C-alpha cells in the first residue's frame, strides 16, 4: 500500500513537472503583456484609484473644491501621461513615435 502510494505520487509529480518541458517550446507567453506594459497598467490602476480617492475626499468634505480641482487636474494629467506611455509600450516598435530630443 505504502509503495503504491509513493509510486502514484511519483508518477503524478513527474507528469506534472515535465509537462511544460514536453510541450512545444514557446518563445514567450503570447497572452501575457510585456513587463513594461504590466508595470504601466499597475501604475494606471493605482492612478485611477487615486483619482477616485480624491473624489471621495471631496464628497466627504476633506478637500475644498479648489484643492480638489487642482489635485484632480494634476492626477488626470499624470494618468494621461501613463496612458500615453502605455500606448507606446503596447505599439509595435515600428509604430512608436520617437520622443523629443
Amino acid at each position, binding site marked *: *500500500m*505504502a*509503495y503504491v*502510494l*509513493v509510486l502514484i*505520487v*511519483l508518477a*503524478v*509529480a513527474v507528469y*506534472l*513537472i515535465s*509537462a*511544460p*518541458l514536453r*510541450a512545444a517550446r514557446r518563445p*514567450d*507567453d503570447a*497572452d*501575457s503583456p510585456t*513587463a513594461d506594459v*504590466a*508595470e*504601466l*497598467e*499597475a*501604475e494606471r*490602476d*493605482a492612478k*485611477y*484609484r*487615486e*483619482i*477616485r*480617492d*480624491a*473624489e*471621495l*475626499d471631496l*464628497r*466627504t*468634505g*476633506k*478637500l*475644498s473644491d479648489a*484643492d480638489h*480641482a487642482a*489635485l*484632480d*487636474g*494634476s492626477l*488626470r*494629467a*499624470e*494618468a*494621461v*501621461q501613463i*496612458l*500615453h506611455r502605455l*500606448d507606446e509600450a503596447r505599439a509595435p516598435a515600428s509604430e512608436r513615435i520617437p*520622443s523629443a530630443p
Partner: protein
Amino acid sequence: MADAGRVLLILALLSSLYGLGASLYGARTGRTEWVDSARRAMYVVAGIAAVAFVILDVAFITSDFSYSVVASGSSTTTPFFYRAAAIWSTQQGSLLLWVMLLAFWSSLALFLTRHRVREIVPYAQAVLFGMAVFFTGLNVLFANPFKTTVAPPAEGAGLDPLLRHTTMMVHPPMLYSGYTLALVPFAFCVGALVSGRLGAEWIQVTRRFALASWLCLGIGLLLGARWSYTELGWGGYWAWDPVENAALMPWLVCTAYIHSIMIQEKRGMLKVWNASLVLLTGTMAIVGDFLVRSGILSSIHAFVSDPTLNVSFVGLISLMVIGSVWLVTRRRDRLTSDHKLDSLISREGVFLLQNVVLVALTAVIFWLTFFPLISEAITGTETSVGPPVFARFVVPLALVVVALSGIGPIIPWRRVTMAKLRRAFAFPVAAGLGTLLVLAFVSGVTEHVFAYLMFGLGAFVVASVAQEFFRGTRARRAMTGDGAGGALLALVARNRRRYGGYLVHAGVAVALVGVAASTSFQHQRTATLLPGQSARVAGYDVKYVRPTASATAQKISFGAVLAVSRGGHHVTTLATSYGLYPSLDPMHPIGRFFNGSSESRVGLDAGALRDLWVVVAPNVTPLQSLISTGDVKIARALLSTEKLPAAQQASQLNTIYQLRDILINELAQRFVTHPWKTQFLMEVSPLVTWLWLGAIIAACGGLIALWPVPSRPRHGALSVRRRGAALPATAAPTTTPEPEPERERELV
C-alpha cells in the same frame, strides 16, 4: 506507512531542489518552460506535503505509537480532536505543517501570478523554493516526523495538558500561516530587486498576501491571548513572552508596510523604505519561527532546544539579512522616489510618521526580547526583562500610534486647507476631549496617566472613523438616493480597502482601550479559604461555597464553586478547577497521578464593563501520607504478581488496577469530604471584553480590506465626471492621435 512518509518527504525535498534549479535556469536563459515546470514543482511539493501530513495525522488519530512523535505527543486517552491537532505540538510535526503551509501559499501566489510579473516570478520562485528546501531539509535530516521505534510503548506520553484547549486547533496553524504568507511578499521583493523591475506591479500582486499575513498573525495573537487568559491561570492575556513577541514583531512591521505601500502605489515614493519593510517582515517571520523552535529564550511556548536546528536557522537568518542589505544597496539607484512629499500635514505624512513609530516599537520589543541573551553574552549573567520594562517603553509609542490611526482617516492625501482640517478634526477632538473631561471626574482614573490618555485617544479614533462612515454614507446617498443602510453597504463594498482599513483602526483603538483599562485598573488578590469563607476583591464578595473533585485514570480534578455577590446581591456563580494528569513515573503507582502535568480552568464571568476571574490552586500536601501509603501497597501488590502464571497475572493485575482507581477516587473525594484550606487567585478587571471585541472588529475590517474587488466595475466607479475640469496644458496628449474625450472616458 511511515516508510511512505519518509520517502514522500525526500520527494518533496528533491522537488524543491529541482524547482530552485529550474527557476534560476529559466531566469538566466529566459526559457519560460523551465520556469513553468518549476512552478508546477511547487504544486507538487504542496501536494506531497499534504499527503505526508495526512499520513502523520492518521497515525496520531489512530494512536500508532510506533511513530516516535505520536508516542511523545499523544496517548489513547487524549480526546479525538486533540489527537488530530497534536501533530503540531511536536517539533517534527509542526515543521511538516510549516512546509505544507509554505508550499500551499507559495503555490497560490505562483498560480495567481503565472501570467504577471514574468521577469520577477522566476527569482521570487527561486526564493520560495529556497525556503522550501531549507524547511523540508530540516524535516528530512534533523526532525523527521516519520521516525519509528522497534518496540512501541503500549501508551503514549499524552498531549501536554496546557495544550488541551479549543484554541489549540486554530492558533498554531493561524500563526504559521501568518509567518509563511509573509514570505510571499519577501520573495517577490527579492525578485523585483534582482530583476530591477521595481514598479508598482509586484506590490499589487503581493499586497493581498501581506494583508493575509497581517490578518493571520493578528488572529493568531488574539487566540493566543485568549488561550492564556482562560487556561494558564496566571491572570493575564499577554506576558511579553519571547514567543509572543516573535509573532508581534512581524505583525507590527507588516502593519507599517501595508500603510507605506499605499504611498508607493499612489506617489511612487518610499521605495527603499518599502523594500526594507517587506524584507524585514519576511526575516522577522523566520526569526519568529526560530524563537519557537530553538528554545534559546525561556518561553512556555518554545520547543526543546536543538543545537542543529539553531545553527541552521542562524545561517538562514544571516543570509536573509545580508542578502537583503546587499540587494537594497545594489538597487538604490532604481529605488529613488518619483515624487516628493507635498506637505507633512497630509495622509502620506501621517503614514510616514506612523511607519517610523511602528518600526521604533518593533526595535524596542526586539531589543528587550533579546536582552537576556545579549546580557548573558556580555556579562555572563542572564538578565530577565519583565512586563513593566516593556510597558515603560511600549506604552508611550503605542499612544502615538493610536493617535495617528485617528488622524490618518480624516486627513486627505497630498494637501489640506486649514479650514477643512479644523472641520475634519472638530468632532473627533471634541469626542476625545469630552471623554477625558468626563473621566477626570471618575475616581482614580487620572492617576494612571497613560491609560487616561489612551481612553481619550480611543474615543478620538472611534469618532474619526464614525465620522468617515457617516460622511461617506451621506455623500453616497446624495449621489444615488439610496437609503442609509444601502448607501453604507455600497460605500464599503466599493471602497473596501479604505473602509476596511478604517474599521481596523477603530477595532485596534477599542482593543487598546481594553488593554489599558484591564492592566491599569485590575484588582487582584490571593485568598486561602475554607468552604463557607469569603474574600473581598474590588467590592465583590467571593464566597467559597463548596469543593468539587473527580478522578479517572486520565485525570484528577480538584475544583471549587464560588458565589460572587456585591452589596448583598448575588452577582454570579463561578466554577474553577485544577486538573492533574498522571506522569509515567513507574516507581509511584499512586503518586504519579499527582506529580504529572497540570492545567487550570478559570471561573470567568465576562461582562461589557468588567470581568470576574477566579482560579483555584489546591494544595495536595494533606493527601501526601495517604499517597505514600498507597504507593507502597500498590507497588507490593504489583510486585507479587510477577511470579504468577500469565493468565493469573493478568487477572490479578486487573484487580489491582481496579483497586488503584478506587483508591485514587477516594483520595480525590477527600478534597470534598474533608476539605482543607485552598488558595484562590481572584481578579476583577475592567473592559477585558473590549479587547476581544476590538480584535474581532479589526479582524472584520481586515477581511473586508482583503476581499477581492470585482475587476470590471472598479474603474467605472468614478461615477461623477466633472466635465468642467479641463486637463492642464502639460497633460495634453502629444504622442497619440486619440482624441482627448476618449482619454477622459477611460479615466472615469
